[in-house]
């Protein structure tokens, strides 16, 4: 308090014990004035919060139990958020957006300490929004056309997605991404917390393959988990929205060059 007062160029107030009656009133007033000043000079700090999934916790039954969602969102995702906030309190990355954190924190394959927490917060938020109760099936319209163009058929894409998910060793994620360079959709697997954002591509949909995502419901049967996801849980509406946004960055159409 005294240090702050001297920084503002105000004389430090004498201890309240000296001349108690009069000094108390004056020191209170001085503190009030100082308080106003300190409020004007104080910094506003903000941190990341946990975003709620767009459905009730039991809405994904029977493919993902309520207990799994409670734990996955309430404990794992929450822990990542808390861990990230704790790191940001003393980090140079304070104030960065999550996407910036992921891209900078990836550090070309040698991730900085903030990377894991930031990426997991982003990945999990993306995951909750990639799902929808009583959804799945196959997409329609433009998304289906693009999938057929890039994979041959929807069945091929589904097979590739499932095989890719099963070939991942250890913890990680499987993604449908829009590749910038190749200008097409593709299925990629990433380990631990690696994100296609860090690799330069545009993610369209993901599936959590860390064991905490499916162990309570499916134990070791990862195939059933992935199949249920792609058949019953994936939200093609969200995929369509993300594709639309992605097309603002990647030109998927044939360039129309007029002939003569």
């Amino acid at each position, binding site marked *: 308090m005294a240090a702050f007062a001297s920084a503002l160029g105000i004389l430090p107030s004498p201890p309240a014990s000296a001349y108690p009656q009069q000094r108390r009133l004056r020191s209170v007033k001085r503190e009030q004035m100082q308080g106003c000043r300190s409020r004007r000079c104080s910094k506003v700090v903000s941190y990341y919060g946990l975003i709620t999934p767009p459905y009730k916790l039991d809405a994904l039954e029977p493919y993902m139990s309520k207990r799994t969602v409670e734990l996955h969102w309430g404990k794992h995702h929450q822990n990542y958020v808390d861990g990230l906030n704790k790191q940001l309190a003393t980090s140079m990355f304070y104030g960065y957006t999550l996407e910036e954190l992921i891209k900078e924190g990836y550090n070309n394959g040698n991730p900085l300490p903030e990377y894991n927490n930031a990426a997991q917060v982003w990945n999990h938020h993306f995951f909750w929004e990639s799902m929808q109760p009583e959804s799945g099936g196959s997409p329609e319209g433009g998304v289906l056309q693009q999938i057929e163009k890039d994979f041959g058929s929807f069945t091929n894409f589904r097979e590739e997605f499932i095989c890719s998910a099963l070939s991942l060793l250890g*913890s990680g994620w499987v993604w449908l991404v829009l590749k910038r360079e190749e200008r097409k959709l593709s299925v990629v697997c990433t380990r631990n917390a690696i994100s296609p954002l860090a690799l330069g591509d545009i993610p369209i949909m993901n599936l959590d393959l*860390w064991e905490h995502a499916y*162990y309570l419901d499916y134990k070791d049967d990862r195939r059933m988990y992935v199949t249920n996801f792609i058949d019953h849980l994936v939200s093609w509406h969200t995929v369509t929205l993300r594709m639309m946004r992605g097309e603002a960055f990647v030109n998927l159409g044939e360039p129309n060059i007029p002939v003569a």
Partner: protein
Amino acid sequence: MNDVADDESASDAETEENADANGDTVDALESSDPDEVGPVTWIEQQPLPYPSDALEPYISKETVEQHWGIHQHIHVERLNGMIGGSEWEGMSLGQMMLSSFNEGREAPHPPFFHAAQIWNHDFYWRSMQPGGGSKPSERLLKFIKRDFGSYDGMIQQFMDAALTQFGSGWVWLSYKGSKLPHVNSRSPIPSDNYGRLVISKTPNAINPLVWGHSPLLAIDVWEHAYYLDYEDRRADYVSTFLEKLLSWETVESRLKKAVIRAIERDGHVSRKHVRKQLLAQGKSRIRARPQQANENARGQTSSQEKPLGV
């Protein structure tokens, strides 16, 4: 059976067989019958050394049956499916694991993941015993105090390693031959080459054996190991493991074997012996030559006396 050209990995595979549970060697049903049709069992997992409900209430019967019976078995099946007709056919589990590791320079060869996971899990089951926990013996405590400061310091390091292992992996207590962190390295400073206990964490299927250390105990921190019993509370799982399940007798017997192996393999000497040698050299420079023979003889006997005197 030693068709492995590299001397190092052959002796390491021997290392692995010794490092396995209490002297049990890995069961390997090698079918040499070419007419045999159907899945061939090149490698099998070791049986559980206790019944599946023996670790209750700390690790439930359901977890043990799922973890040993189904999860580890999947690795066995996959590995057996991969080996037929490949360069790894006919190798023991340890040899296969070490040779497919590809020295960590690039990605390991495909069988490594499954072979290593089978080995790791066998090691893990044998690191535990029903009614385990309690404190290590006095001798072991002495080395723990020397290398970690105190028993509680070691527990703290264990917890830190387990909780900071991001993703899937293992936590190990191992016996390491030299101060340098690299695989199979020897420091040019002789006094740095004394064996010590270290705690390390490894991702996915890697284990300290491929780094040239001798593992003494393993804790599986893949989520499947504790999720059914502890859900997301990894700290509770690890502290329960250390307090109630860990078999210090097994750790001590593994340590004895590791030290003997280190002495045989590296001509390992104890720090005391090195100091004695240096003193002796110092003295011999001052005194007349005939004294030297006596000093050396005394030095030799002291290294034979106490194989555990690291």
